[in-house]
């Protein structure tokens, strides 16, 4: 039982290790002396010497990498050039927004994408099916920020129901009501990805419906609705669950744009600001955090597969 879980975890760790090497070299790839890249052009000489010894920049590259890895393990991602505070703290401030945004979006994707995909598949070929598939394809072809801007135009500017930007934390004044700031952003982020999940659910439902064991179930005299939910949906969801892995990746990517459109104080917007401000340590830190987050979500999806599909032991 454990060999599969251990095997998958080891694979994820190996990928993370390899990714960390690339992330480490990120600073060195940037044109210019790594010291001034890390400290900014107006760094004072003693700041430069302090940093050189801390990261052992005069040491061979492997030692530098290990030194960097040790620091990162301890949570020391270096100091933000712009904010002059530890990078981790900058990221932590933005974490709440991004995590809440991602979670609410995942809920929308699951609530909208899967059920409608099932309905479209059950009504295969009907007007409803073609309509839903058409809308899904349209949503999957539309730039995220265009959807966002239009939601702002309609719900914030014209109707004034919802705030168009900003996000006061739920721990501050206003409490949970502040979540309404995330309503439009999460819908913007959910639209294209829910469309993809809808099309995937529909396609895998239709594939499974053609399988022999579904014909066996019908031959047993089982009512159509029960055949759909007990036999077709259960197998179709296997494909959908495995798609949640890369949907989460798409989510992180588009969050960068969505947070910029809605001026949300999340990690996504932070990356863009840091790039424009040439705040490289923060960029490096964010990339590392998102890669760790993404690989862990992928690992979770992989491990959950173990319980959904009994054949997985064979793999």
């Amino acid at each position, binding site marked *: 039982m454990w060999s599969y879980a251990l095997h998958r975890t080891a694979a994820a760790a190996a990928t993370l290790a390899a990714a960390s090497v690339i992330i480490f070299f990120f600073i060195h790839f940037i044109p210019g002396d790594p010291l001034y890249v890390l400290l900014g052009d107006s760094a004072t000489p003693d700041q430069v010497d302090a940093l050189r010894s801390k990261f052992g920049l005069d040491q061979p590259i492997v030692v530098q990498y290990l030194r960097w890895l040790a620091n990162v393990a301890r949570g020391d991602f270096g100091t933000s050039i712009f904010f002059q505070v530890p990078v981790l703290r900058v990221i932590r401030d933005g974490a709440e927004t991004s995590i809440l945004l991602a979670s609410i979006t995942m809920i929308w994707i699951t609530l909208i994408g899967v059920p409608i995909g099932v309905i479209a598949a059950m009504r295969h070929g009907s007007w409803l099916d073609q309509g839903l598939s058409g809308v899904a394809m349209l949503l999957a072809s539309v*730039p995220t920020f265009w959807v966002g801007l239009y939601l702002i135009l309609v719900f914030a500017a014209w109707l004034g129901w919802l705030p168009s930007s900003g996000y006061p934390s739920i721990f501050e004044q206003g409490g949970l009501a502040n979540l309404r700031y995330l309503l439009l952003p999460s819908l913007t982020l959910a639209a294209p990805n829910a469309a993809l999940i809808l099309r995937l659910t529909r396609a895998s439902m239709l594939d499974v419906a053609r399988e022999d064991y579904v014909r066996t179930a019908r031959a047993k005299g089982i009512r159509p609705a029960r055949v759909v939910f007990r036999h077709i949906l259960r197998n179709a969801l296997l494909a959908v669950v495995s798609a949640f892995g890369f949907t989460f*990746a798409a989510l992180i990517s*588009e969050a960068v744009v969505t947070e910029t459109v809605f001026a949300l104080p999340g990690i996504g917007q932070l990356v863009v600001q840091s790039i424009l401000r040439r705040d490289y340590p923060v960029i490096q830190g*964010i990339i590392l955090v*998102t890669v760790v987050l993404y690989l862990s979500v992928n690992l979770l999806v992989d491990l959950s597969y173990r319980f959904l599909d009994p054949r997985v032991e064979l793999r």
Partner: protein
Amino acid sequence: MSGALRSFLAPFLGRPIAFLGLIVLVGLATAAIFAPMLAPYDPSRLEPVARLIPPSAAHWFGTDQFGRDTFSRVIYGSRLALLIGVGVVSFALVTGVPAGVLSALFPRFGRVVMRMIDVLMSFPALLLALGLIVIIGQGVTNAILAIGVVYLTTTSRITYGLTLRLRTETYVEAANSMGAGAVWTIRKHILPNLISPLLVQASFVFAFAQLSAASLDFLGLGAPPEIPSWGNMLAESRIFITRAPWLLFFPGLSIAITAFSLNLVGDVLRDRLDPRFREMLNGNRR
């Protein structure tokens, strides 16, 4: 030649909407090529007097805050869209396909390459592109390269899966049993059977590249402002969202129609594919 054309068009004739998709793509290409003739105004000519005019007979799509004609800028924008699409697709195919094919046919080489691809795929798409742009700098070519790397990973992974599948086909084994070398197998058996699945992949990559490029432009990290691009136009329109909604509508619609048509064409071609390959092409990502 007409035989190949007819066989290419065949899937579209049956489905009117898909045919529409094809027509839109042809329209995009014509707009891009004949932009100077089609655009009524010089896209970058400032006309302070004609600032923020709504769509009218003189300016079909209205004008922006500098008095530039939106319709002309949309027409010229199709040039960049085509350039980005073709650039990203060719980069992804030129690098991804050989990597996928060779990795599948030479397992020792394959294990290393596919591991590297896995590592690259652990970076969410836009972050990978942004990271690359930070290193190689902004600009159209760099944007194409950055987005190209993102779709190099999915293309090589899909090609790897397809080639692994093709390698076990009986006709490839028959060729091996007759003494066919790797080059012959690739040229005569693998590549010809990769063409239609890769055509499907190319349409999806072309569509996603539009969206990624627009995002980069919107974040101000894509094409420089002086080049008319749909993404830049949207970024600039943000401030006038309520006063000049047409600035938001037309560029966004152009991106959506282009991406939608390409997705449609990709879908239609995918339905004609051998069912065993169809399922492999779901692994795309934005």
